[in-house]
């Protein structure tokens, strides 16, 4: 097995993941034949509609039964089926480097999630690409459907860990990504979304406008949710190095209320835009999360 995949996934996890599939809920545009619905008409067995015969059409497609009834020439058209192109958008801002205690950092957790999703995609002969960003796009790999490509992709992730002081500009980067991916694809976003909420909402809406299907994995550390600190301390912002002296016990109630509102706002944005929103806590086993999510997605798409 290639080095990038082995870094994030064990053989047992690979075996479990190989039985899963990631389907797009929307029609997608691929360049290969596959099992995902395409907006184009092609040569599948799924009948779509009739069209009047024009010169140049293959006479073998003329529906003679219709000619018999109407004495006019119509050709039969069939649904085109194509492959899925999945883009993994991973946030590598400094805040993603936060890790409480012995837990893995949010970025590391996001890489594991991306590896698992990417493996499932490639195993289904779909294509996977990468967009690694913070305040700008650090790496963009076009979608391809080989394990070698996936391995390279994960190596890129491993080689670009978050650096302290790296700010985030999720919204603007997502706009760029939405513009750069022309054909309908599935965008899987891994981020803590520590940016302006309204701007992120607009960026996500941009994806929908471009007919992309979006899955958002909101990666957070448990300490960011619960704020369990007890002693007074000076907290330093990992992105802008700003410092703030607070007594956590005195602020805990207000902090938790604000975070609860933030989570609800993110969830609501995704629901409004018909996207999948998933909260990924870094204390959860990532493979279980992916497995549970994909099974549920498959069940709901039937």
């Amino acid at each position, binding site marked *: 097995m290639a080095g990038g995949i082995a870094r994030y996934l064990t053989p047992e996890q690979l075996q479990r993941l190989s039985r899963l599939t990631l389907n797009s809920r929307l029609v997608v545009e691929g360049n290969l034949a596959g099992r995902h619905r395409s907006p184009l008409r092609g040569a599948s067995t799924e009948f779509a509609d009739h069209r009047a015969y024009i010169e140049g059409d293959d006479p073998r497609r003329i529906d003679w039964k219709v000619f018999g009834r109407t004495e006019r020439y119509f050709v039969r058209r069939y649904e085109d089926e194509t492959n899925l192109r999945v883009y993994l958008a991973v946030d590598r801002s400094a805040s993603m480097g936060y890790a409480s205690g012995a837990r893995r950092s949010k970025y590391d957790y996001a890489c594991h999630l991306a590896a698992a999703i990417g493996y499932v995609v490639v195993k289904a002969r779909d294509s996977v690409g990468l967009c690694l960003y913070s305040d700008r796009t650090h790496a963009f790999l076009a979608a391809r459907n080989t394990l070698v490509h996936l391995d390279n992709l994960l190596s890129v992730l491993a080689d670009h860990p978050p650096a302290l002081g790296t700010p985030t500009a999720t919204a603007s980067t997502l706009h760029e990504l939405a513009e750069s991916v022309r054909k309908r694809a599935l965008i899987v976003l891994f981020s803590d979304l520590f940016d302006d909420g309204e701007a992120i909402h607009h960026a996500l809406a941009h994806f929908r406008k471009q007919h992309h299907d979006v899955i958002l994995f909101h990666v957070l550390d448990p300490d960011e949710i619960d704020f369990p600190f007890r002693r007074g*301390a*000076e907290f330093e912002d990992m992105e802008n190095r*700003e410092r*703030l002296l607070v007594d956590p*016990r*005195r602020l805990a109630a*207000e*902090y938790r209320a604000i975070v609860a509102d933030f989570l609800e706002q993110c969830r609501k944005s995704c629901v409004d835009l018909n996207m999948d929103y998933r909260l990924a806590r870094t204390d959860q086993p990532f493979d279980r999360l992916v497995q549970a999510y994909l099974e549920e997605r498959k069940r709901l798409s039937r």
Partner: protein
Amino acid sequence: MWTFLNPLFLWAGLAAVIPLVLHLFQRRKIVRIPFSTLRFLKLAERKSTSRIRLENLLLWLLRTLLVLFLVLAFAGPVIRTTGLGRWAPASRRDIAIVVDGSASMHYETGFLRVWETVRQTAAQRIRELRPGDRASLFLAFDAPRPLIEQPTSDTELLLTLLNAQKPQPTTSRLKPAFEAARQSLRDSGTREREIYLLTDGQAMAWRDFLEEVEEEPKAAEEAADRRTTVFILLAGAEQPENATPFAASLEPTFLRANQAARIKASIRFSGAARPTSAALLVDDQEVARRTVDPGEGTQQEIVFPIPPLAAGRHAVRIELPPDPLALDDVLLAVIHVRDQLPVLLVGRDRDLFFIARALNPPDTPSGLIVHTADPLELADQRLTDYACLFLCNAIPLPGQALQAVEHYVRNGGTAVVFPGDRGDPGDYDAWTLLPAQPVAIRSVPPLDASRTLRLLRPDDPLFAGLRLPPGSAPTLAVTRRLEFGPIHPDGQILLVMGEQQPFLLARRVGRGRILLCAVPADRSWSTFPLSPFYLPLLHRMALFSTGAGAARLYLEPAPVLDVTDLLFGLPDPLDVTAPGGSILSIRFVTEEGREARILEQASEIGIYRMTSSEEPLLALNMPREESDLTPVDPERLRRHPWLKGAVVAKSREELNQQVTAHRLGRPLAELFLWLALLTAALETLLAARACRRVPPLSTQLSLDPSGRLVPTPPRQPAP
């Protein structure tokens, strides 16, 4: 004005900056924690800044106050109520000390007698006098006894006099002593004045104060002196326990040799009454013992039988087990047992023929000495010398004689009235003590003359043990008889003749008794003198008469004791030996034409004996009202205008504190400790509230395994 008992502790007030210093110090040793973003923290801080600032300010204030209160409490602040405090020039002070010297001061509380506590307190007040201060000293008895009447600064003299005193077997009245103390301070000018009333707290000693408040509050208000501070020490037990033989009486009061009798004793309890036992000792030999169960009451009557005693005087003791006030556990008495009882027959010779022979048979010793007197001479007789008085056809009596008889009966004598031809029913109108008023003298027809006597009240003491001669029948032949009007409510018919006609009536008057017969004591109206009932009935009347002139069993101390009744049959002059061995003389005095024998300077408790024969003569007991140790209510005392603002203490230590508080000021250390406690409690509450635990957000989020966040349903508003 403020002053501090431990001013050095005020330096500890600098510790009030400790909370601030700790706060600043904490800032410097802050821990730095890298965190993903501060955006939420900033929002949270913005929302709670004003709250946290207020909480911080309150916490800082409370912590500073806590330190300050503790410092103040340990510094011992006192606030002066009068004067200018410890550091101001000391003003001169005059004090008057009144020490209760009554018998109840012998009460033992723990290891000390109340007297010792009070004496030591007085001595401490004297020793605390500063140069220029003065003191006067009084003992409170029934009348105040000044030891130093004018204030003096000679503390040695004061202490010597005080230490030479001891409680006397008397009661005490504190108000006259208080007035004497106030009087002694009237020339004190601008000096500070203090009166100390040092007593055991017995309510009896305060009765003048308590009664005055109820009777003449305005007069007491006008006489109040606002310049003098009164300190009261109630050093006795708060719930004293005491039992005492309170009183004793002899039945019959005239006791003849070899005659059984009984002593009735009252046992009184103060405080929690417990069952106890009482013993009767005659001539130091125990003759009876009784259990005394007080039940719910405070007084219990017990009766001791007295065996027949030889003629003479006998010392009697009624003893209870020892209790904290041992002085009143014994009641001493002297019983005079006589060879013969004197009775007086009033009437003319022919009227007394039968009765004189019946009471004093020629050949048989009756134990009675019969004296006779004409009705006109009755006023000259000293009736108290006689156990019983028989009036035979003696009515009408001169007014003075009638008054003497009534006085005799009221004071415990027995008078027996037999009618006769001399008096009409109207002559009885002047008598107010008869059991029934005679309304007529009725002649009885010969055919109805025979009457049988019948006892209506066989349980009356008069008939106790009455035995008629064998074969005799109580039947009379009556020719005339007195007819009576309505029976007095206190009167009763003892004997009837025939079916319903009263024969002998009785009525209790005061401590005595009067008997009225329907027929004379001679044969002029009936055959009563010939009846076998006649002689025993008359003897019972004489023997079981109450006897107004019976000698008192015991006396209580007084400056002058009238002992006339105790010297019956004894020659003059007479010397007596006091219990302590000193010899006192009984003096003969004539006062307003009345002869009396008096004993002076008898203040020792015990049996006084005749010096010549060692025979007991009189018993002197502690005043029994002094045994009532019911404590006074300090609140009632404070209602008296003279004692308004008085400082009342229940122990020597408390009094010392109160005196110090008065002279130096009121101590506020305890108040500051309470404030510190309250502040600490508030600080704890506020700090706990500020750092209250809020449930983690994770427990409130509904997160399924696939990471889906289920929206929490909005809370329903409370109905």
